[in-house]
């Protein structure tokens, strides 16, 4: 499917180029992420022991808020001037567009996480008592879980009123098992209390199931008026 790959790549590079040219969007998102971390730190200011227990939850809730801000602008450029019509009218496969957008969001949200995570570690004096390397697959799988469904529901929300509230409304219930997995896995790794393996496997399962569902149904969503 070389056309799928080349169109996906072309779309992704186009999005990155456009994002780079109008850096205000990224800058304001970065600042928002910083604010979220600071506010959380003011609201939950425990000593080191307790913080490891709830840090997993705090970090991922913070990431979730930052992700929503990023996901809400996924299709903003395509809506202006109705560019989406040009895509729909072309022979390009819908999935190429979806994968490109999902990957773009993944990169963007990972960027935000890369800013927020060290800040959390500083404010909460965090240190992993368990195998810290496991945080990497948790972060990757967890972020993809949010981004793949988020990109999909953002497209669904295009056909609704109150678009910006519709996205979190649709995304949060479906994401519950993924968020629980991320939070539990992070808590276990930080406190060194047991094995996070089950949660990582559940996250992987979630990712596989929903990536397949999104790829299977995105064309249907895109072609809805």
């Amino acid at each position, binding site marked *: 499917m070389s056309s799928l790959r080349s169109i996906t790549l072309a779309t992704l590079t186009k999005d990155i180029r456009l994002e780079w040219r109008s850096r205000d969007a990224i800058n304001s998102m970065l600042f928002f992420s910083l604010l979220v971390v600071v506010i959380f730190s003011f609201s939950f200011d425990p000593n080191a022991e307790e913080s490891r227990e709830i840090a997993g939850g705090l970090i991922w809730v913070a990431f979730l808020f930052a992700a929503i801000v990023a996901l809400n602008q996924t299709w903003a*450029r395509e809506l202006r001037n109705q560019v989406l019509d040009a895509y729909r009218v072309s*022979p390009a496969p819908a999935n190429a567009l979806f994968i490109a957008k999902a990957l773009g969001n993944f990169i963007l949200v990972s960027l935000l996480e890369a800013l927020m995570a060290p800040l959390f570690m500083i404010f909460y004096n965090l240190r992993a008592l368990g195998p810290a390397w496991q945080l990497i697959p948790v972060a990757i799988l967890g972020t993809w879980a949010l981004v793949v469904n988020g990109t999909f529901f953002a497209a669904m929300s295009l056909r609704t009123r109150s678009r910006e509230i519709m996205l979190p409304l649709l995304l949060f219930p479906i994401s519950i098992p993924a968020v629980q997995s991320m939070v539990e896995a992070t808590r276990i790794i930080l406190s060194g209390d047991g094995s996070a393996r089950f949660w990582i496997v559940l996250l992987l399962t979630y990712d596989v199931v929903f990536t397949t569902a999104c790829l299977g149904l995105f064309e249907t969503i895109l072609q809805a008026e």
Partner: protein
Amino acid sequence: MTDAQTTQIVVTSLIKQFGRFAALRGVDAEFSGGKFYVILGDNGAGKTTLLRAMAGLAHPTRGTISILGKTPQEACRELGYMAHPSLLYDEMSGMENLRYFARLYGITGDDRCAQAIRSVRLDPDLTRPVGQYSQGMRQRMSLARAVLHDPQILLLDEPFSNVDVNSAREMVALLKHMRDAGKTVFVVTHQASLLEGVADEFIWMQAGQIVNRTPQLVSPSAEAQ
């Protein structure tokens, strides 16, 4: 050429409903290849909906559209679509825009993009982002995008609105040239006078139906007298 005169597009009992509002209330028509059709009528007559249905962007509530014996989505390579929004990315230059859309059609290399831009009398080397163009330039660039992949059939929705006289004339010249080369052209417009002497047939719509088809630009009420 004998090819050009055969029936290319067949619309059968087309009904399009948006909730309580019926935009198309049973349209039956046949269109031959190689002709220049102008679709006229008041606002709300269903002109845009008919064009979008032919482009595959609006799904019929009932009835069918057959383009070259296929559905509009299957025939997408043969269709070029243009509307009042530019369907272009404001933050990229004309050439960058066309390069991206060319990829969607599997076209690589800059030659065809440059050629399409030159055919609407714009400069391929212009680096100014499309968002800063005048309306006339933007519509011409949008037309370049529509003809980039050399489609058989052009569907243009209000291409001349808010466009300066010069740009409009350039566009009409190009469209005439394309019809002479055997392409089929559909233009929805309120400025039918621009196309007098160029168009082969004027199609009048009212209240979601085609009420008249004339070779000359004469309104139905004038004919009744």
